[in-house]
């Protein structure tokens, strides 16, 4: 009797998970398998794929040129995540201390940029950052600077563009976790003798850690593979790994090599995630 009802439960479970499962298989696992497969193939003379097994793509990926791109991507992605965190946390905190009506409008303001195409917004950063752009005109006009800064087409510009683009992904999850914190707990900590620093370190930070983790992952992973921002704001010299992959698929028409690099990037992401979650587990 009991067994039968368990089978029925399983059946309902499969029915309910079915659509998601199909989606996962056809739009994630199958493409992934194709990419893995390609990465072990040879490149045809005119950009096609020759179905012959080789490890050359992976060996080539460890060329200094590409290694540099990997290292630079990881560095920029971490810097971006860190900057988003230290800018986003105070913003999220500030919003959560406001009365409900103001809160909602402020959150709306955080989301509003998404209503415009990301490419367009990145182009507007070019206008802001270029030599005759808004920043330089302002600094020169106020006599703060003699000569204009070379902002555009530098790593700085890429980081500025990435922070701008990914900040909402940091603010929203942190805001959500701050909203869940009972502010009475902060009073209780103060009452027990904790100064503001201790209240933050011992109560606020641990209680909002889930939001910090979620936000960091949401920012770190896409910024590792970013290619639009470094393309437009970084110029050719600041290649991130995303640009390499894009160029291999589109310009160089070397799909097997592009696939190999994409797989390596994925492995790096998975390793970083494991490391990150491991560290946070220990902190708990």
């Amino acid at each position, binding site marked *: 009797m009991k067994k039968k009802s368990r089978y029925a439960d399983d059946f309902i479970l499969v029915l309910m998970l079915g659509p998601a499962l199909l989606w996962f298989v056809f739009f994630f696992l199958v493409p992934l398998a194709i990419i893995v497969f390609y990465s072990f193939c040879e490149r045809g003379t005119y950009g096609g794929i020759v179905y012959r097994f080789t490890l050359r793509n992976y060996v080539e990926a460890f060329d200094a040129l590409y290694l540099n791109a990997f290292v630079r991507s990881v560095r920029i992605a971490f810097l971006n995540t860190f900057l988003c965190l230290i800018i986003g946390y105070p913003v999220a905190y500030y919003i959560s201390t406001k009365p409900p009506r103001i809160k909602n409008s402020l959150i709306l303001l955080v989301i509003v940029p998404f209503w415009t195409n990301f490419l367009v917004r990145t182009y507007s950063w070019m206008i802001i950052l270029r030599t005759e752009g808004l920043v330089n005109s302002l600094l020169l006009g106020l006599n703060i600077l003699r000569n204009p800064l070379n902002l555009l087409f530098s790593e700085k510009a890429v980081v500025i563009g990435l922070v701008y683009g990914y900040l909402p992904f940091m603010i929203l999850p942190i805001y959500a976790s701050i909203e869940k914190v*009972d502010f*009475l*707990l902060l*009073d*209780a*900590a*103060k*009452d*027990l*003798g*904790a*100064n503001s620093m*201790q209240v933050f370190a*011992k*109560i606020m930070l*641990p*209680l909002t850690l889930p939001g910090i983790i979620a936000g960091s992952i949401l920012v770190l992973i896409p910024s590792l593979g970013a290619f639009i921002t470094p393309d437009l704001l970084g110029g050719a010299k600041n290649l991130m790994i995303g640009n390499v992959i894009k160029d291999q698929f589109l310009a160089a028409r070397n799909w097997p090599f592009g696939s190999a690099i994409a797989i390596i990037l994925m492995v790096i992401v998975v390793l970083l995630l494991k490391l990150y979650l491991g560290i946070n587990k220990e902190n708990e």
Partner: protein
Amino acid sequence: MGQIDLEVRNLKKYFGSVCAVNDVSLQICNGEFFSILGPSGCGKTTLLRIIAGLLPPDKGSVYLRGRCIDSVPAYRRDINTVFQNYALFPHMTVFDNIAFGLSVKKLQKKEIREKVLSAIDLVELEGLENRKPKQLSGGQQQRVALARALVNQPSVLLLDEPLGALDVKLRQLMQDELKKLQKKLRTTFIYVTHDQEEAISMSDRIAIMKDGRIEQVGTPIEIYSRPKTKFIAGFIGDANFFEGKPAFVNDSTICLRIDNQYAIKAFSRNQLDISTKVIIMVRPEKIRILPSFQTLDLKDNNEINIVNGQIEDVLYLGNMIEYIVRISSKTRVIVFEQNYSDQSIYKKGARIVAFWKAKDSVLLSE
């Protein structure tokens, strides 16, 4: 009484146009169990938050052992609070919750451990040190909140309806334990509650609060037997009220006519004006019922108020009987009688005589 531990003078706090605390002054003695009793929303929590330093008052000052502490931030005040819904830190174990106050003061690990363990012992939470607050029952959470505050050995402990969330049985148990604990530690307790029985049974003194104001401060006996206002009389226990202009006044006695049928006597310490409206209050348990006048011994009838009536309703409360007695077309009184024997309970509709001593008529102001 002992020396004054905590004093507040003329405290005022507005939230927008609402005056949550209105000109409150109190003096609380060392080692006293002092209760603040009042209905929901009267400003009790706000007053405690001001004393704890968590909320700046708009006016007035707080003194701890004679020293003004208005400029001392909450985290440096030698005052701890048990919050209304405990406010335990959900990400910490019971041990870490209790150790919090000591660890932010950077005490030695060993010393913290000793103190926390003895606090755990004090509130009988042994074996639960490593649980998170979510894994505890309401009563256990309450004990953790208590231990977390007490472990710091504050001069004054503020308790904001600490038993409000517990069921009746557990509440009575905790009342006894709290009272014992307070006797043992001799810490000054400021205990906020809206439960009048709790306040009466536990406190050395009670302050009655209404709409942000303190209406009366006194021992439980004073508050119960000599309430100053109708609000207090009705809030603490049950009460019968008779209102009107007095028919007769002299130095010590006042007489009130009710429904042109009876004259009710009360004693007054100060001279009253015949034209001012008065309220006389009689506690239901002070009124006695007899079947007829004949059974009443009238040798000192000057000192007694007598009314005729008919039993309108009888409520059997087990140890007590509550009678609703109609004494005139407009007026009814409540009478509590000890349940001496189940056979002697008056029936509905029975005609009776009710009487009480004139000194049990309490004169109130509006």
